[in-house]
């Protein structure tokens, strides 16, 4: 792999097995705006060729982090390397694409003129631009609209134009900040397909999103951010398999039987005749059932649930209380200053319902 020798991280760890080359590597990134700390401490590693989901509620510091990585904001503290180069290196910038969150461009330009301008900024030759512009327009589903002025584009079309702009230089690493925020469900799916296609071409994608479903469907690796802190990080698989909840329908229980159960995992919910136990490994389930039967407890039903990313997310963002269920219950009855999805004014039940609609975790 030629890429290996290019990254500093691989060189820096000479002697050990070469780590997978990193597209992004940050250590203790921090950004203060006066009194306010937008980003406390972000330490992440994004391997090349992966789709990395930066997931968090509104105001968590996702955009600020990306701005620091792109040189739009100077970090108050911490350091980062992008494509093996320090922040702000022009060489790395040549191979980076960025779709900003608040997508605003010079709306009086025609679509093609706009792309031509950005192509020039990337340093593409006239021939390259002439070849590349129709290509990216087609890719984002704006084929044939290049002659229209951006002013006449709908919000969704503008977002597509922004995406086209980010892909003009066929970057090695592309940052997408809430790329589907202005899109309808069909548009969202198209963007997901584009992201998958980019990954298939070996591109690294850094996806900022507060949409669980989006992250869950396209990302290889996820970092969950909350109030400026990275609270969870790992491959999607690792996050989802970290634990599972097992619903048990049981006959009469005595204290001894309860203690038995607690040897296998924490009891996260309990009603008459029904329990929910948080366990680490599905292989433990038959053993638990066996132990219950031995203890003389009647077992009527055992239903293991993988925790969905939503559970992991809510757990992480709410500070991982021991009871996920009660967390959800809390969301329902205590309107926190900012809801789980950063909808401060909407009544919490709406937040919950949205969560269930967007993320049918049980389908997985």
């Amino acid at each position: 792999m030629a890429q290996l020798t290019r990254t500093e991280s691989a060189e820096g760890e000479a002697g050990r097995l070469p780590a997978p080359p990193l597209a992004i590597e940050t250590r203790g990134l921090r950004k203060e705006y006066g009194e306010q700390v937008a980003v406390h401490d972000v330490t992440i590693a994004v391997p090349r060729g992966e789709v990395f989901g930066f997931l968090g509620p509104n105001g968590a510091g996702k955009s600020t982090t990306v701005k620091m990585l792109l040189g739009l904001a100077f970090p108050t503290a911490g350091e980062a390397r992008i494509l093996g180069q320090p922040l702000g290196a022009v060489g790395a910038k040549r191979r980076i694409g960025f779709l900003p969150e608040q997508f605003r461009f010079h709306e009086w330009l025609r679509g093609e003129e706009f792309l031509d301008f950005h192509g020039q900024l990337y340093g593409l030759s006239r021939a390259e631009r002439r070849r590349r512009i129709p290509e990216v327009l087609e890719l984002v589903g704006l084929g044939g609209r290049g002659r229209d002025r951006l002013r006449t584009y709908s919000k969704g079309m503008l977002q597509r134009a922004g995406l086209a702009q980010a892909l003009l230089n066929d970057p090695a690493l592309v940052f997408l900040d809430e790329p589907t925020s202005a899109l309808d469900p069909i548009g969202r799916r198209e963007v997901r397909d584009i992201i998958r296609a980019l990954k298939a071409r070996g591109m690294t994608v850094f996806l900022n999103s507060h949409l669980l479903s989006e992250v869950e469907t396209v990302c290889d690796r996820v970092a969950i951010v909350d109030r400026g802190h990275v609270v969870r990080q790992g491959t999607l698989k690792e996050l989802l398999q970290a634990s599972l909840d097992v619903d048990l329908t049981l006959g009469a229980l005595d204290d001894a039987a309860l203690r038995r159960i607690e040897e296998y995992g924490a009891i996260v919910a309990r009603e008459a005749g029904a329990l929910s136990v948080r366990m680490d490994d599905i292989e433990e389930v038959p053993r638990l059932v066996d132990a219950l039967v031995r203890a003389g407890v009647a077992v009527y039903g055992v239903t293991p649930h993988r925790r969905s990313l939503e559970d992991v997310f809510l757990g992480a963002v709410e500070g991982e209380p021991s009871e996920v269920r009660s967390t959800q219950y809390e969301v329902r009855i205590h309107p926190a200053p900012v809801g789980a999805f950063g909808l401060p004014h909407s009544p919490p039940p709406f937040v919950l319902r949205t969560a269930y609609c967007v993320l049918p975790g049980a389908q997985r």
Partner: protein
Amino acid sequence: MKALVIARLTFREALRKRMIWGVVLLSIVFVALYAWGFTQVRDEFLREAARQGARGNGPGQILTLDFVSTIMVGLGFYTINFLAGVMTIFAAVGTIAGEVETGTFQAIVPKPLARWELIVGKFLGFAGMIAAYIALMATGVLITARVVAGYTPRTSCWRRR
């Protein structure tokens, strides 16, 4: 040169500001008034010269039409200078702060170009526009002097025609 890419866009954008066309309109009014005023001054001067001539004082020894024209052209340039200043302010004020605020810079700053290229490009774009404006206005004033008084400024005021 990335700065030139920025300059070209800045130039085009500047031409889109309504204020600019307001100043241009004002400038056309100015040139028209200037031509009219110049004609009045010329006629007055020629009348006065003729009156003096009739009294036997001969044509103005010191105060020639060229001398009057020099003053008029100077006044014209002075006004252009002022208008160009107004134009510069209207065109360029808050341009960078504005682009930071609206967010158009968010897609431009991460591109492979240095900050100074962005600033220099902005400067060149506006400088180009103001230069074009000054050139046009100066041409208007000079043509007026030529047509009204047959006067063309010379590089040295001592040289005789």
